[in-house]
Each structure stands twice: as structure tokens, then as C-alpha cells.
């Protein structure tokens, strides 16, 4: 019985340690109307509604935003990807290398770059580009594209993305959501978010 307080202390410590990862993954609110920098880069966006910035990052130059959870509506920013870099961090450089953005990458190849990255990274069995159009992004000539894919969870999703290559670096913003309900429900908010993106 003498040991009880120590046991209690150890118990509390265990609880505190167990809950520590949750504290580390504190998500941040991105409030409507407040301009905010993305992925520690000069790229800023002014959200037209409240978003949650998830603390989980797929890579150094990426940032994840969502409303209801990343499986339901997922905005991914790829900000200032430099030549030689993959879009997201490789799980294993040797065993699971990802395709890289290079100096020679053409704008028309950017959708393919995202597709091959996701096919390896998300192990999407089925991925289909549905439209690739020229369009403006960050005040430059860019590409707007749409796609459909099925992930490991076998939930069919749709995606829409905009990308531009500015001063040799790739900027891209994508929105992915389940085909049923969530894509249509969130796409307008995403488009407004993409429209608000600025580079100084």
C-alpha cells in the first residue's frame, strides 16, 4: 500500500504520455477573411470560410486543410516545389521512390506528376484524368485539371487541382473528396480558396 501513490503517479505519467501525440497534432483554425501564409512560404490565401489546417504534413512544402476530416474533404497545397524534389516526402527513398518535379517538367505533365505520385503514395488502383485545361493560377498561366480515383479504402473520389510553374518552382493546390455528396458540397469553397491564392 505504501507504493500506491507512486503507482498512481506512474499511471498519470502513462496517461500524460499517451495523450502527448494528440497535443502534438493540434490542428489550427484558419478563419474566414484572414490572409494566411501556407507551408512557411510566401504563398498566401484568404479563406472564404473557416477551414482546419491539419498538423500532419505529407512533405516539407505541403499543407493539408479540411472541413470535416481529410477523408471527406482534403485540400492539399504544394508550395514552391523545387526541381529535383518529389511532391510529398518519400516513405523510402530506395524502396518506394516517387517521381520528381524537374526543370524539364512541362505544365502539361504536371497532372501526370500528381497521378504517378498518388498511384505510388496512396496505392490508388484506379486513377483517371477527366479533364486538363489551360487556366490562370497565382496570376500566371497554369493548368486546371480534374480527376477521379479509388483509394485503398475503395471509396470513389473526385479531385480538382490548379497548378502553375513560377520562377522554376511548382505551385499546386488540389481538392479531393468522395464522389458522393462531399465533392459537390465542397468544390465551390475550394475554388474560392484557390482564387484567393497570391504570391508577393
Amino acid at each position, binding site marked *: 500500500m505504501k507504493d500506491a501513490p507512486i503507482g498512481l503517479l506512474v499511471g498519470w505519467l502513462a496517461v500524460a504520455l499517451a495523450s502527448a501525440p494528440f497535443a502534438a497534432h493540434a490542428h489550427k483554425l484558419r478563419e474566414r477573411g484572414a490572409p494566411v501564409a501556407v507551408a512557411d512560404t510566401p504563398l498566401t490565401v484568404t479563406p472564404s470560410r473557416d477551414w482546419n489546417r491539419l498538423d500532419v504534413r505529407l512533405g516539407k512544402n505541403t499543407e493539408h486543410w479540411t472541413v470535416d476530416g481529410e477523408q471527406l474533404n482534403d485540400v492539399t497545397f504544394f508550395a514552391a516545389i523545387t526541381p529535383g524534389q518529389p511532391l510529398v516526402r518519400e516513405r523510402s527513398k530506395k524502396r518506394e*521512390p516517387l517521381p520528381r518535379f524537374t526543370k*524539364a517538367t512541362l505544365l502539361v505533365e504536371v497532372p501526370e506528376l500528381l497521378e504517378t505520385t498518388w498511384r505510388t503514395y496512396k496505392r490508388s488502383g484506379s486513377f483517371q484524368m477527366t479533364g486538363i485545361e489551360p487556366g490562370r493560377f497565382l496570376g500566371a498561366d497554369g493548368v486546371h485539371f480534374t480527376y477521379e480515383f479509388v483509394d485503398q479504402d475503395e471509396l470513389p473520389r473526385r479531385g480538382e487541382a490548379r497548378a502553375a510553374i513560377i520562377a522554376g518552382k511548382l505551385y499546386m493546390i488540389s481538392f479531393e473528396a468522395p464522389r458522393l455528396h462531399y465533392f459537390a458540397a465542397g468544390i465551390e469553397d475550394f475554388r474560392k480558396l484557390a482564387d484567393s491564392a497570391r504570391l508577393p
Partner: protein
Amino acid sequence: MITRAFLAACVALAWLAGAGQATAQPALVPPYTVAYQPVGVDEIGWWREMDEEEAVLAQSDLVIRDETLNAYVRKVLCDTVGSDRCNAVRIYIVRAPFFNASMTANGTMRVFTGLLLRVQNEAELGTVLGHEFGHFENRHILGKFKARRSGTDVLAWAAVLGSLAPSYDVVRTYRNLEFSIYGNLYRYGRDQEREADRLAIAYLNNSALRPQAASQMWDNLMAEAEASARGRGLKKPKFDAIAFAASHPPNAERAGYLAELARPDAATRDDGAERYREALAPWLGMFLDDQIKLNDFGASEYLLQALAQGGWTAQLHHARGELYRMRGAPRDLVNAAQFYADAIALDPAHAEANRGLGLSLLKTGQAGAGQAALQRYLDLKPDASDARLIRMMIPDQGAAQ
């Protein structure tokens, strides 16, 4: 002392429970039961669970529902295991670019498209389908479930009883017991795989297909794994050794015993390579595209070379061009342009090859020739999904927009 004696008894029990059933004898095809129904609470429960899983799978967007392809794969299964047996199974072709197939307790067979891309004839496909069917016919999943339950039961009781006499000796004995039981469970699983392999070869021996193809398939897979590792600068994989927790026997061992068990007098049989190529032809483009976009240069190049053994086609040249262009080093782009040109030489109306050629030439500084190729792409496929963007890359066309 009682506890230690109990633990020792547990070790012996676990050893017996997990003792392998592998023998060198070729398996005989077991007697067939029409419309087998699950027996006992465990099996009935498993089947119910799998029925629910199958209902979800049947709705999945990853399932390829094409009637002709499904009928063909079913025919190969029926040709392998016999037309009476194959009715017990529902086949689902799942779009996933990996070499795999699986079987559940209730007879749901998943066949991955990556498997269809890799096998080269009906006999090789029959080997895999027969293997999966063997798991079903010998109720392996139920056996594994029961073995796992007994093993973990022994461990749970050992933990309870061991805690009555906590000493270093008991803890050490418990750890040994744990390793022994888990090791035996994994080995039990591998022995089931060996048994399914032996059944597959028994079905093939009884069929009209060439059973020697079974070991050939494993040889090809090992060569592909080697090519993949070489392409990534990794060490040559070991095919004769496995990890403690490996689910399958080593590939080299499988190739060895499958070659041994194949009926020697059946070596001259037809393996159905031509029929297989014909049936796969409408799907080859999609399966190749899925493979090439996996970013595994060595394996994709190996597969292309294997597919081209019967001669290079425009489709294969184009796929090779895509593979090289996507890797994208300057030397790759030069090669890619050549492969696209080879494809166009065989099929001048191949729109995608013209696109690839145009992009590769643009990236190697040959703007004029590149734009001409892109123009041909637009002429051949004016409603392509990226037509407007490509048009902007051709100066005259871009100005017209």
C-alpha cells in the same frame, strides 16, 4: 514448479499444434463435395462474415465487371480444377497493379489485374487460380483461425499461470513459449501455402494444361524482382530465405518443388499462350498504363521485354516510351523519343505516341519537330482531354485561341 511444468507442457503442445504437414508427396485431388455448406459454429461464423465482405466487394469501383474477361478467367479456373469444382467460386477481377490473388472461406476469389499482366499463358494463370482454389477446397482459412485461437489461448493461460509465480525463470520460459507459438503459427501458414501449391499442381496434372508452367511463373517473378531491385540500386533479393513472420515459403523453394511435382509426360501439352494473349489484348493497354505509373522502372522494363518476346507492337513501344519519358533523365528522353517513333512507324494513327514524341522532343530542345508531332496528336484526337493545353504549346495554334 507446477507453473513451470505447465509452461513446458504448453511448449510441447504448441509444437504439436503447429507441426507442419509438409511432405514431399504430390497431393491427390481430394474428393469433391457439391455445394459444400459450412459446418459448426466457427465455420458458419466465418462464412457469414465473408458473405458480408463479399457484398461490399461486389459494389466496389475497383472490380472490373467486363463479361468477356470474367468469363475467360472463369474458364481458365474451370479448365484447371474441373467444371464441377469451379462452380463453388465467385471470381472478382480487382484493378490493382500487383501480382496477387486471394481466397476467402466462403469461395470469394479476388484476382488482381497485376497478376493478369504478369502471367504469360493459361497454365500459369491456372497455377495461381488452382492454388487459391486449393485453399478453399481444404478449408485452410478455418484451419488457420483455429490454430491461431488455440495458440493464443495457450499464451493467455500461460500468462495467467506464470503471473502466479513471478520469477525471471518463468518470464524467460514465457518469452520462449511466445516465440515458439508465433513461429509455429507462421510455419503452419507456410505449410498451408505449400499444400495449396501441391494441390494446384495436382489440378494442373489432371487438366489439359502444361503443369511445367507453374515453376516457370515463379522463375519469371524472381527475375522481375531482381530487375526491380537492380533498377533501384538495391541488393539482389534473396529467394531462398524468408523472415520469421513470412506468410509464404521462399520463391526459389516453390519454383523447385513445383517443377519436381509436374508430370513429366505432360511437358508437351499446350499452355494456352496464344489464347491468353488474345483474351488479354483489349486490356493490355490499361494494365500496362497502371504498371508504368507505379514508378518501378526495373520491373516495368522487365515486363515489357517479356511481353515483347512475341514481337514488339505499337502498344508496347508506346508504353516503353512512356516509361522512359516519365523517368525523365535527358538520356531517357532521347530513348523515349525513339520508342515513340518506333510505335508511330508501326501504327501512324497512334495518337498518344505522337503526344509522347512531341513532349519528348520539346524537352530535348527540338521545338519544331516536337510541335509537328503535337499537331499530329491534335489532328488524330481533336477532343483529347488535354487538347486545349497542348494547342497552346504550338505557337500558331495558341495565337488562334
